[in-house]
């Protein structure tokens, strides 16, 4: 027979091994097997594989799985209806920690936005924006408006050489410093006070207020937004996993 010369497929060998072939198939395949050492080897290898699988021991039961009466009650049904989330108990800590980390990230990002805006907005609203800037920075650093007004006035008088519009950014720094030092601000030496804090050099008002402070705040703000945003996304993602 021509068919006898064709090697048996794994499926045929497999069925032969399990005696799941029809009588006709079995007779035909065995006829080929008897004359074909290659197929005999393949069958032996298959048989050994199956023998090893069969020799796998049953794992020890970790506990009994009998249902408790109350768990099997109809009233308990809704609770057990969704058996899909199968998680080991020790992973339950993580979502909580992740939630906290995520909140912290969100807060950092928001603080970053505040820093960023307090640095950028005054520069944008240059010119007639003195009052806008002061209100922005006051809302950002939560300092009451009267203090702002007084510092603004004193800044205007104390720094006459500075460019007119540059008076905007000192405001933000002044208010920021007054947050750190909550003692009642002295209207006359408030700007010099803040200048001394930011930098000890004697002629820095223009440089420090206009460049370093604003740029520094923008930079810090961007960094915080970036890190906070990354944390927010990262923890959101892994939390869903």
């Amino acid at each position, binding site marked *: 027979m021509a068919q006898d010369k064709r090697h048996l497929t794994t499926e045929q060998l497999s069925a032969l091994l399990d005696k799941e072939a029809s009588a006709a198939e079995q007779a035909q395949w065995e006829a080929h097997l008897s004359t074909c050492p290659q197929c005999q080897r393949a069958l032996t290898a298959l048989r050994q594989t199956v*023998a*090893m699988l069969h020799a796998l021991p*049953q794992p020890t*039961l*970790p506990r009994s*799985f009998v249902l408790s009466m109350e768990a*099997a009650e109809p009233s308990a049904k809704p609770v057990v209806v969704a058996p899909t989330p*199968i998680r080991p108990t020790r992973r339950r800590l993580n979502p909580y920690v992740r939630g906290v980390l995520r909140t912290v990230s969100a807060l950092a990002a928001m603080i970053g936005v505040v820093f960023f805006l307090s640095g950028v907005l005054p520069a944008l609203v240059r010119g007639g924006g003195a009052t806008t800037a002061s209100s922005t920075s006051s809302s950002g650093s939560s300092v009451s408006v009267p203090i702002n007004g007084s510092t603004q006035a004193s800044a205007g008088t104390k720094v006459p050489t500075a460019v007119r519009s540059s008076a905007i950014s000192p405001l933000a720094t002044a208010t920021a410093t007054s947050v750190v030092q909550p003692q009642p601000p002295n209207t006359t030496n408030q700007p010099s006070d803040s200048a001394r804090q930011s930098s000890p050099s004697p002629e820095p008002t223009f440089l420090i207020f206009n460049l370093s402070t604003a740029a520094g705040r923008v930079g810090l703000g961007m960094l915080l937004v970036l890190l906070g945003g990354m944390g927010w996304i990262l923890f959101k993602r892994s939390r869903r996993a």
Partner: protein
Amino acid sequence: MSKIAQDEEELIARSQRGDVAAFNQLVLHYQQIVYGAAYRMVGNADVAADVTQDAFFAAFRNISSYHGGASFRAWLLRISSNLACDHWRRVQRHPAESLEYLTEEDETPSPEVLGALASNEPADNPEEMLLTQELQGIIQQGLEKLPLDQRVAIILCDVQGLSYEEVAESTQTSIGTVRSRISRGRARLRIYLDQHRELLPRNYRLT
């Protein structure tokens, strides 16, 4: 045998009327095979235990949908292997989770240790081929590398000893499909084991 079958029918009928005690007798009888199959499918004891418990809950709730005919164990194994596969797919979608399982619970044996341990086979049970822990681990890894449909078919048929017909019932496919899945799974597994031939018992080495 028919006595046991009758008892089982009786227990199923009582379970269908809401008798938890009767159902629990079925649980006691089948928990080993359900847990064993789940364990081989997911390769993790904790997950297998969860799957088994959930499968018995689901079986009790839906026992009215069991209409004799098919074997009860095939019906139970259908529920549990579906749950096990669901879990496996979920883990595959989030590999970080599976990595956590692996690093904390499944210690992969190092090849050096394997070589040393494979040689001293315990000989106190000549009837059964005894597999060293390490070889069991290799076979388990081989199973986990199979596609799900082949894995389920192999585990039910070759590990748990179900007939093709029962496997077909459990997986809701035809006998022809079962036959093809089993043969492809065995072929793959053989190739995988061949890569670890030095660990196989001497008389079972694949040539």
